[in-house]
């Protein structure tokens, strides 16, 4: 076997390995909202081969979100279970996370789960202006109002439906 052939084989091997790693990470879910994967949320930014092991790049949603530590552990554990022992999880701050990165599938899953997904694009609205006219995830009425801008986790606000009177969570657009 000549050297060029060997290099090609190694890069081909790395490629298929990264593909498998990607598939494993696709199944890692958010500890607070288990219907969403970290890929759906846009937390998972990249997967790389650093020459000796796997490097996973994640980005925090909110700067103080306590779920980040659990997510890092879950990423490591999922890869360890599948035989990848040399794993480095790196946190990247820039560009800052935005709900615009949430996948369409993720938004649909969130709605099915009873949480209203972020409305519109973060560039077009300000957190300083309250979001109105959200559709109730249960009865679909648009007659809803904000109860509190801060909910059970940093990423959610609390709303109430005036038609069916049920409270619901809204995933803030940031």
């Amino acid at each position, binding site marked *: 076997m000549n050297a060029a052939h060997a290099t090609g084989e190694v890069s081909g091997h790395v490629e298929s390995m990264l593909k498998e790693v990607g598939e494993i990470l696709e199944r890692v879910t958010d500890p607070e909202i288990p219907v969403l994967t970290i890929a759906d949320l846009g937390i998972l930014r990249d997967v790389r081969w650093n020459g000796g092991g796997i490097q996973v790049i994640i980005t925090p949603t909110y700067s103080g*979100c306590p779920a980040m530590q659990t997510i890092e552990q879950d990423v490591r554990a999922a890869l360890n279970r599948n035989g990848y022992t040399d794993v480095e999880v790196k946190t990247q701050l820039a560009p800052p996370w935005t709900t615009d990165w949430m996948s369409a599938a993720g938004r649909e899953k969130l709605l099915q789960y009873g949480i209203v997904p972020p409305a519109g694009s973060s560039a077009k609205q300000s957190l300083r202006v309250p979001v109105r006219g959200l559709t109730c995830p249960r009865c679909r009425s648009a007659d809803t109002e904000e109860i509190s801008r801060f909910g059970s986790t940093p990423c959610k606000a609390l709303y109430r439906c005036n038609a069916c009177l049920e409270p619901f969570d809204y995933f*803030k657009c940031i």
Partner: protein
Amino acid sequence: MSSDLFQYVIRLGDNALINGQRLAEWCGHGPFLEEDLAMTNTALDLIGRARMLLTYAGELEGEGRSEDDLAYFRNEREFRNFHIMELPVGDFAFTTARQFLVDAYDYHYYRALRDSADATLAAIAAKTLKECEYHLRHSSEWMVRLGDGTEESHEKITRAVTGLMPFTPELFAADEVDRAMQEQGIGVDLDSIETSWNQEVDRVFSEAMLERPQISFTRGGGRQGLHSEHMGYLLAEMQSLQRAHPGLNW
């Protein structure tokens, strides 16, 4: 390593940490559930910001100190936060007024810091700004609700503002570290932050039917590690667990 940069970063980290620690004291004591959540959510954002900044400060220093080493194993004189951050929580009006004055400062400060020549600071600022924006909106709304509310709420928020204003000139009193960082394009221009802050404060005060009190004295020295009598008690509570069990982990 530039020791000016280390100083600059640790001051920002300490301001976020001490403000967050004070706000977290409301956990379980908020006037009602939604506000309890709002204050603790904001505290969480502040602690998260402090973690990013203190981790970075530790890297700049290059002596292997982690965010926890810096938060739990420094003594009072080594903390570089402003006095306004360490004042006791007081009543809800006092906490609200402090948060508003600080949120307005942070919002304009981190907005400017996004253009820092230091890539890490610029990234932290861009991340933080999104959170500062809704903190400011929340505390501004409360200023109006209390100021333009009942006779009692107006009286309480007026008393809070009167007590807090003397601590605000310190926020804009640039020293040699601030000037060196500004010259290098890393730090912000505190004069322009002061102008924006004054406009923000005047706008909200007028909506809240509040008068800006005359300041007859000021307090400062936080940048140099000189603190009020309240700081020792705060640190005792914040640090006692790590001091008793060094290196303790979740």
